[in-house]
Every structure is written in C-alpha cells, then in structure tokens.
C-alpha cells in the first residue's frame, strides 16, 4: 500500500503551503485566502511574472518565487487548476503597474482559468498576457481542434528566462515574445516506472507490469498512450532523446539547455546517470549542452519516473539563464 505523511487529504495543500512559507520567510509569503504565494519583498517597477497550476508538482511553481524568477505563484488543489479568482487576486497583488505575465502549462482547466483571470484583470485595467507552455511531445497530434501538447518541465526554463528578463526591465510584450520563443524551441518526453498516488489514496493511479514502462507519461497520473519494454537506461536514453532532436530539427552546432527531471521518487543517482548519457548522446551528434538542470523540479507526487527536456539556447537565452536567481528551489 502507498502511504504518506499527511492528515486529512484535503488539507494537504494548505498545510504544505503554510510550512513552505514558514521555511522560507525571507523569500516568500503565503496569502491563505485566496491562496497564492508572493515574494517576501515585492519587486517594484517591473512586469510581474506569475505562474500557477495544480499542486503535487512541487517545487513547481511556489519554489520558484523570488528575485530573478516569479513574482507570484498560484497553487490549485492537487492536480487541479487554481481558480480564476485566485489568479486574479495574485495578479493584482503582484502588479506594479507594468502588467502581469502569466506562464501557463497547457491543460484545459489551467488555460480556462487563466483566460478568465485575464478578462477579469482587463476589466480592472490591469494588463496581462499568457505564455502557453506546451512542450510534451508525447501529446503532439495533428488535430488543430485538439487540446495540443501538454505543458511540463520546459516551464522551468520559461519561468527562469522570463523572470530574468522582467528583472532587467523588459515590458510585457517583449516577455511574451521571449517566452513563446523559448516554448517553441522546447520539447519534453517523460517516462514512468511506477505511478504516484494521491495523498490519502492507497493505490497508485495506474499499475505497470514488471517488464513495461509508461512511455510518454503525463504529470497528473494519467497513463501514456504507449507502453514499452523496460530495459537498461542506456537503451532508454536514445528512445527519449532522438524524437526530441527530430521534432526540434536540431543538428551539429546547435546549443541546448537540458533539463533531466525526476518525477518524484527517482533518485539523484539515477537522474545524474541519465543526464550523463543524454549529454554524451547529444555531443556525439555535435550538439552542445550549454546549460543543464538535473533534479526533481516538476514532480507528479511520488511517481517513479523522469523527463528529458531539450531547450534551444541562443546567446540571449544563455545570458538570461545565467542571470542571478534567488528562490527556494533555484538559486545562483
């Protein structure tokens, strides 16, 4: 049976946020009702960068609130979008008069609530715009009316880079353009060895036979379209990296930021091994790994799994990536 350190399952998120804010008093403060997280020392005279989505992906997004990254994060219930009113309130609190950038992972509920929040804000004279992050190659279909690719770990790169640009004074339209450019150069594939379990639920959200992996899994416990054979890591890495390279049309001379991300219960020993192999594979075809992030940044509760994200990196991107950042989960 899967078990967790929790009280009532419905209190998991507010209790965690209370502890989170208490653990990082110099970085963030938490507004309980409506629930959102702000920088402890709000910035002035810059476009506010805000993100949000369901909880259960920590450190995303609350862990990225701080100087050089997000001004506010809006957490929903586990795997459920925050409401439009939460987003509105957080945006009003973070706005310095120069508008609010909403970084949104592409899921129906999130998109709907962020769009509504945008309309509410516009009625109140506050400018906002959305960068929609849709990097998950596993959900790439040709249907133009379909929901499109899901948003996963590339959101960290978008938040980092837009956060840095906002800190330097970029205006809302520049940030939107920058964010969309990063998104268009980002693709992710995720794989699971075991599903996570919702707090208080004893069963993981799906069961996998011992010789199978969930290939192209999402970060909300949903199953993937495909199961593949379980094998050694070195057999998996090309299966994950090659489609990303192809879809981004990458080749000799290109530069990347690479995010190797744990989905919750995957150990650093595994993640670093994965990263080493991804890097070797890329360098073998003449692509340089200019920057990297290896760790559990976008989780799916206690899922055993990983994702590999490739992000095209030009000089501007690298410069913004390297800019100082000071948040609970990312500091340099």
């Amino acid at each position: 049976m899967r078990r967790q350190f929790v009280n009532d399952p419905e209190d998991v998120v507010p209790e965690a946020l209370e502890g989170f804010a208490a653990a990082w008093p110099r970085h963030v403060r938490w507004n309980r009702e409506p629930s959102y997280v702000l920088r402890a020392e709000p910035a002035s005279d810059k476009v506010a960068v805000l993100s949000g989505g369901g909880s259960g992906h920590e450190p995303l997004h609350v862990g990225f609130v701080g100087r050089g990254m997000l001004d506010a994060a809006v957490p929903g219930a586990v795997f459920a979008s925050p409401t439009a009113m939460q987003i509105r309130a957080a945006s009003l609190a973070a706005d310095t008069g120069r508008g609010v950038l909403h970084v949104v992972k592409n899921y129906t509920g999130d998109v709907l609530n962020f769009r509504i929040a945008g309309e509410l804000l516009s009625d109140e004279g506050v400018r906002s715009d959305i960068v929609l992050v849709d990097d998950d190659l596993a959900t790439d279909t040709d249907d133009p009316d379909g929901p499109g690719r899901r948003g996963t770990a590339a959101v960290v790169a978008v938040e980092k880079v837009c956060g840095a640009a906002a800190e330097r004074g970029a205006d809302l339209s520049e940030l939107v353009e920058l964010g969309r450019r990063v998104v268009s150069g980002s693709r992710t594939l995720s794989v699971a060895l075991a599903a996570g379990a919702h707090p208080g639920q004893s069963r993981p959200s799906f069961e996998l036979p011992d010789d199978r992996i969930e290939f192209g899994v999402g970060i909300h416990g949903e199953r993937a379209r495909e199961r593949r054979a379980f094998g050694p890591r070195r057999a998996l890495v090309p299966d994950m990296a090659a489609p990303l390279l192809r879809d981004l049309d990458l080749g000799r001379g290109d530069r990347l930021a690479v995010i190797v991300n744990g989905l919750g219960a995957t150990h650093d020993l595994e993640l670093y091994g994965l990263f080493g192999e991804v890097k070797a594979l890329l360098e073998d075809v003449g692509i340089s790994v200019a920057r990297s992030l290896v760790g559990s940044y976008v989780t799916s509760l206690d899922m055993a799994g990983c994702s590999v994200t490739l992000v095209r990196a030009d000089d501007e991107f690298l410069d913004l990536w390297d800019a100082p950042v000071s948040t609970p989960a990312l500091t340099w």
Partner: protein
Amino acid sequence: MADQISPAHADLWVRGFAAAINDADDHLTDLDRRSGDGDFGTNMVTGLRRALAALPEHPDSPGAPFQALSDTFLSHSGGTSGPLFGMWFRDFAKAGHGTPALTLAGVAEAADRGWATVTRLGSAKVGDRTMVDAIAPAAESLGRSTAEGLSLEEGLRAAAEAAEAGAQGTSELLGRKGRTSYVGDAALGAPDPGAVAIGLFFRAAHASVTDGADGTR
C-alpha cells in the same frame, strides 16, 4: 406580473435556480457520469451553497445577486463548468449593475454577451454537446421576443422553453468538447448536464417574475 427585474426579482431568480439545481443534484450527476466524470451535480450544488451564503441581504441592483454568484463560482468552483458558469453569471451581473431594474432587452443582451463569453473561453459551437446548445437558442429567443415586443413574462417563458428544448436536443449529439468527447456514442440518449442546468437557469428566471409577482418574498 412584473415587467422589469428588480433587485428582489434577481434575488429570487438566483435562489430559485439554486433550489432547482439542488433538487436535480442526483440527476445531473448521473448525466455527467454517462458523459463525463460524474462530478457536475456536486460541483454545482457546492458552488451554489457557497453563493447563497454570499448573497447580499439587500441587493442594491439586479446585478448584485449575479455578481455574488459569479464571484463564488470563479473563486471556488473547479472543473470546466465552474469557471464557465462563473463567467456566464458575470455577464448578467454586468447587465444589472447601475440600473434599478432589468428589462427583457437587458436580459437578452446579458444572454448574448454570456454566449459570446462562453464561446470565446471554451470555443464550443452549437452542436458540440455542451451548455452552448441551451444558451444559444435561449439567447436567440430572447432577442426575437425583445424585437417582437413581448412582455417580460412571455419572453422569459419562451427563453426557458428554448433552453430546455436545446438541452433535450443534446441527447442526440456526439460530444466534441470537454470530457464527453472521450466517451463517444456512450453518452447518446441522455442530455448534456451543463445544457440541462442552463434550462433550469431560465426556468428560474421565469418563475421569479410569476411566483414572486411583486418582487418581494
């Protein structure tokens, strides 16, 4: 019979709608179980219970009760329908703000705006098996009734009938938006719960001006 919707009428409308949804809870949940994930009734009942607690004691405009409804739904309701209803109610709040009473033309304009809002946000067209299949005929009916100079009572009755007919019609539709698009023809034969709720919304409108003829309670 009232010929305009006073703040007290609007209050009755909202309370009547809440009561109707409450009575239909199991039925709506069952419909959502056939075409989605079965949480529609509960989501609506929970949202409306909160909204009732937030209704102003003495609404100062016919927009005020709808504003409370909208705010609670946008603040607390999840799923797909919660925020869409929140925005739908919001257009009724906007129409009713700053005016002592809403005419039939005002209701027609609110419904038109609401239709546009729901379409803009959810991008469902008529025939996609969503609440839009009840909203569209009701809005069109209200427009016709206004043009033809019908009374408030007549116009709201026609709107309720149009919404209910639109909702019933979804029984024969294949879902193309939201969760119901995943279940294919398994949902055929039963109407879309969101559309049914829109029928109840206009039925409550009509009742508010007939039952509470003097706008008091």
